[in-house]
């Protein structure tokens, strides 16, 4: 392979990396190798050699096409992504001594056990900055928001079904002497949990806390938890929430969500979720938690239809409505009425205690 070809291809890989295609060195090596089997001067061959070795996801393909056109035809690439202006949703975390909480106790780290108890059951929409910071801290301590299911695989147990293989093997080991029976039982595996958090205007006092709850869920089962935000459009924020540090995770999430405090078209969002992710497998056998107040700007019948679809795919459907805890609350909003027949567990989710209860519902569903 001539030197200039290698240099050209390495430069191309750099362009790809800048555009967000994961062009790691191993892939670059593979591309150079692939080109060597084809005609370097044929644009089609070079295109395919690169695409087959560099891309790993359908989402990579349009990026690859843009980079290819820009790099090999000299056209400047269009601006690929403009970062949405960061929306400040993170409430100032009050540091001890400098809190502006007025008559609230300043030093939250010294909060007594009984104060924490009171705080636990208070509505998060009515908290001062310092109290909110304390709730965030307690939420970050939530370490088990996950569920398990029975696996098809077996593990050795003292009771259960007869394990023929192990029994025969132990007999073999003793040269044909039957010594005792071995048993096996099903193992358990993590069950997928999908959280859909409504970030529309009516949910804005709770969205932040609910996303922190989602962060705790992602942290306790990173491979089997998926989080989406819903407002006027559906955004998958699982990757953003993988950040270990809660505040940093919330910063990336708020940058990723384009529709904070807008309206809600929950029916359409849910349809998009089911079309793009749910039906292909993400919702199958999963526990799907929808955190929303059910204020639907669109057609409630669409929401009902999609909830029915979700119910047929998911293992359990949980609806968390922060207003449920208010005295005299009746599910009267159009969206809530349409959705309720398809909900297995209808819970609150307005306070720390309610969120802990939600974690329990997920674990025992």
């Amino acid at each position, binding site marked *: 392979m001539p030197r200039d070809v290698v240099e050209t291809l390495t430069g191309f890989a750099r362009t790809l990396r800048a555009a967000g295609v994961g062009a790691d060195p191993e892939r670059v090596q593979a591309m150079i190798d*692939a080109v060597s089997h084809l005609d370097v001067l044929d644009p089609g061959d070079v295109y395919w050699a690169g695409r087959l070795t560099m891309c790993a996801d359908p989402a990579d393909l349009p990026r690859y096409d843009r980079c290819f056109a820009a790099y090999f035809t000299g056209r400047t690439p269009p601006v690929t992504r403009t970062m949405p202006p960061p929306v400040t949703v993170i409430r100032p975390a009050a540091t001890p001594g400098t809190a502006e909480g007025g008559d609230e106790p300043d030093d939250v780290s010294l909060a007594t056990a009984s104060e924490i108890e009171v705080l636990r059951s208070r509505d998060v929409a009515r908290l001062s900055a310092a109290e909110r910071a304390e709730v965030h801290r307690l939420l970050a301590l939530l370490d088990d928001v996950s569920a398990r299911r029975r696996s098809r695989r077996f593990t050795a147990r003292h009771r259960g079904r007869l394990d023929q293989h192990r029994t025969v093997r132990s007999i073999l080991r003793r040269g044909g002497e039957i010594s005792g029976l071995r048993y096996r039982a099903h193992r358990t595996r993590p069950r997928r949990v999908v959280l859909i958090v409504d970030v529309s205007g009516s949910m804005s006092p709770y969205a932040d806390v609910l996303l922190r709850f989602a962060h705790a869920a992602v942290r306790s089962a990173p491979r089997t938890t998926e989080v989406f935000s819903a407002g006027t459009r559906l955004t998958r924020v699982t990757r953003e929430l993988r950040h270990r540090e809660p505040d940093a995770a919330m910063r990336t999430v708020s940058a990723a969500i384009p529709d904070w405090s807008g309206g809600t078209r929950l029916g359409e969002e849910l349809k998009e979720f089911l079309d793009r992710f749910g039906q292909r497998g993400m919702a199958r056998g999963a526990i799907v938690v929808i955190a929303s107040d059910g204020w639907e700007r669109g057609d409630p019948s669409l929401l009902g239809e999609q909830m029915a679809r979700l119910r047929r795919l998911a293992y359990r459907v949980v609806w968390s409505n922060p207003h449920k805890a208010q005295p005299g609350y009746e599910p009267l909003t159009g969206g809530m009425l349409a959705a309720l027949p398809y909900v297995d567990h209808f819970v609150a989710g307005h306070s720390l205690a309610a969120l802990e209860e939600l974690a329990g519902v997920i674990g025992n569903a």
Partner: protein
Amino acid sequence: MPHSTLNPASEFASPKALSEALEAHAYLSDEGLATACFLGLRMRRPLFLEGEAGVGKTELAKTLAAVLDVPLIRLQCYEGLDAAQALYDWDFPRQLLHLRAAEAAGVTDVARLESELYDRRFLVSRPLLQALETSTEERPSVLLVDEIDRADDEFEAFLLEVLSDFTISIPELGTISARRPPVVVVTSNRTREVHDALKRRCLYHWLEHPAFEREVAIIRRRLPEATETLVRQVAGAAGRLRGLDLLKAPGIAESLDWAEALVALGARDLDPETAAVTLGTVLKYREDTERVVQGGIEALFNGG
């Protein structure tokens, strides 16, 4: 990897030559797919095919095996698939019988008995081991790992290990390595994100639904007895169905089924009545069928 020894079975001069060979076996590929297969054979890298159900991923592996004139070894993935089902297993009942027989014959040489027990003949080879064992320089075997997204992620890691060095070590027997890496085709319907490490080992190709002309060509090639009008109408209707935002858009497999059903009914062209009774071959959800019927079946093949 050097390719000093050219062997006729697996070496094609160019992607185009491979594409023609595939076409001779009734598989019409486009430039991208032909290049992917060509590079897969040349670079001895597994092919990772992703795309909607029914776009011809599995069919490609079958056709590749036919083109190379070697048997296809298929590993269908499912949840709970483990090494004993994918790789090898010891035939315990036979081992036990052997032990009993030896006892009856009065064999007392324990060491010999032990070594006999873990003999190759008591090893049941499953698809992955089979593929490694049967692959030779002249006749590489074709291994299809179908629907990898259905297997659990532990299996992925295990597959990655096998696909990186094409060697399997069996504690009792020793290491078995392939004389030549088999031609591997891994398919996924994308119900789950497959780990990047596995994709990195492979050539990644995303299969799209075929364009109208290609679909016409494919149906015509597969069903020579169908009339030209019927073929064009079916391909047109399938294309329109894909644009309808259905729960499950029909793939090429479904349009082939549809055309076949219509041919079996003796239809020479697509009319609303025959279309309505055969719609079950293309649409697999009641909601989809309702939607299409509500919108009027005629709308599907207007101008097709």
